[in-house]
């Protein structure tokens, strides 16, 4: 069974962390992943940087620009992750925009992910219908779970459609925004979490965008299986480097 599906069966709320590969320094990738696992993070999204990250706010944009300056490429990332499964057991997901994957070759990319032990992909700008029509069989051939996003504006009908095509979890974007745009939740968001929670979807939901501390983590996971933190973690490594990841994770979980 895919590590993501195994993890989703555990009887706990899941904490997933996003970081931009190649940031702050080019060779931090493996260290960050190992430290996150050691400190009790359940799942990791490894951000493959892109020159034009449309769905991201300033924090992740800046980290992506720096990562590219540092020399991060698809090849370099795969090389850095080559032996990652010797030390890390939790689910690993690559999150990135479609063009770099498309240039690498979608099948070659998926094959490489399988060799390394990547469990899933999140590609915000690969539309559901294009995935379904052209790439689903390739992803499945290499045992990869593709994770789709929904937002408060996504219609129930479309959520059901996305649920039918998903086989892991649904990435529930907390508000219509780019990453890091908003901190905390208002009534509107908690009502949305509840609405989706009550839809009894076959896939679990994990909430992302707007989670930065213990309070928002708790709010987000009241109705959902887990939560993803991205911008807040990238900010943390920007300010404090990669030596105090334990401090960050503890501040969320305690």
């Amino acid at each position: 069974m895919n590590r993501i599906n195994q993890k989703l069966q555990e009887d706990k709320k899941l904490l997933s962390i996003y970081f931009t590969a190649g940031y702050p320094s080019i060779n931090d990738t493996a260290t960050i992943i190992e430290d996150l696992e050691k400190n009790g993070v359940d799942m990791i999204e490894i951000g493959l940087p892109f020159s034009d990250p449309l769905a991201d706010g300033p924090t992740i944009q800046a980290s992506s620009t720096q990562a590219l300056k540092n020399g991060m490429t698809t090849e370099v990332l795969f090389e850095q992750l080559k032996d990652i499964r010797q030390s890390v057991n939790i689910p690993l997901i690559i999150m990135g925009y479609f063009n770099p994957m498309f240039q690498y070759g979608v099948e070659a990319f998926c094959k490489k992910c399988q060799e390394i032990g990547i469990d899933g992909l999140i590609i915000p700008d690969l539309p559901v219908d294009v995935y379904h029509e052209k790439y689903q069989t390739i992803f499945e051939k290499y045992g990869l779970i593709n994770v789709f996003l929904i937002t408060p504006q996504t219609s129930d009908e479309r959520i059901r459609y996305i649920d039918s095509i998903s086989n892991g979890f649904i990435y529930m974007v907390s508000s219509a925004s780019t990453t890091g745009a908003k901190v905390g939740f208002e009534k509107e968001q908690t009502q949305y979490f509840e609405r989706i929670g009550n839809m009894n979807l076959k896939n679990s939901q994990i909430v992302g965008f707007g989670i930065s501390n213990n309070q928002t983590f708790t709010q987000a996971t009241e109705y959902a299986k887990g939560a993803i933190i991205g911008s807040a973690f990238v900010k943390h490594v920007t300010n404090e480097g990669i030596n105090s990841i334990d401090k960050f994770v503890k501040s969320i979980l305690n």
Partner: protein
Amino acid sequence: MNGNKENNMNYNVNEKGYYGEFGGAYIPEMLYPNVEELRQNYLKVMAEPEFQKEFNQLLKDYVGRPSPLYFAKRLSEKYNTKIYLKREDLNHTGAHKINNTIGQILMAKRLGKHRIIAETGAGQHGVATATVCALMGLECIVYMGEIDIKRQAPNVARMKMLGATVIPALSGSRTLKDATNEAIRDWINNPVDTHYIIGSAIGPHPYPDMVTKFQSIISEEIKWQLKEHEGRENPDYLVACIGGGSNAAGTYYHFLHENDVNIIAVEAAGLGVDSGESAATSVLGKEGIIHGCKTLLMQTNDGQITEPYSISAGLDYPGVGPMHAHLCKTGRAEFMAITDDEAMKAGLELCKLEGIIPAIESSHALAIFEQKSFKSDDVVVVSLSGRGDKDLENYIEYFKI
């Protein structure tokens, strides 16, 4: 040159939003409701008699259409062929851009949007958007690269006078590509009340088709105007410069399936196609995804979008619209690349021979006459997409006037 072309090839968008293999809507889910709302409504709205009436009335009374199709006698004599100029430079605000912004502002109103956002490079589309927002009394926010704001101060002032808020794009290379990213991010963050007026025939479906249809007034007029001049609707050649490609799309639209019309698309070679400082996407680009559509774009082997270069801010874009990518791939259009130097010379030549100061974008289209010969009885229609007022500083600096 088009001998091997299939006569039944479709050059228009299909029901899924593709031109051949190009186009589509590669957008994050956050944009889906907005883009889907537009997709479901744009054709319906555009077909409404009331919409048509209002659109055409504004094009006539406010923009000043039809724009003349002018026989450029002295230019024709010099190159020993028959050259007509489609005078989009005479439109209100000085370029073809206003055709699209009039159409889209009427669309936005019918969709109940009251906040308008736009991206701009040189500022022409930003001015055209600020203009129609003032006309309709709608809030207007224009994203413009920080570097372009410095380079195009007069247009920034125009937008402000027209009541628009100009927000500098501070990310990436701080030019048009990044202004477009910022506008898209704004739309993600404002999913209900906002309409994004894209200025070129780019972006996710239905934008390339919608922009092309609003700009198609250009080719619609060329047909009847040429009939008056020459007794026939079809020219032998149609020439337009191409960045994202909205003036080109409008110039070609009604001739795409007229197989006796040769189509020439003129890209900016910058300092030269192989110089590393160029915007000749058809030569330097590869298939990929930019700003929500699959098309030809300039990128690294790793799929990172690269910075183009051209002296003309309006052609300084790393991609082309998906329709043009299809015209290129199928061979329907011949793509030519013109350097900064060639364009500047052609621009000055038009000043001296015809008393018309063209935008540097349009000067690229004019420069092909030095590269390609035409028969003396060929009818060549060139889209003069904009006037050169905005480029005076560039011309002054270049020619040390």
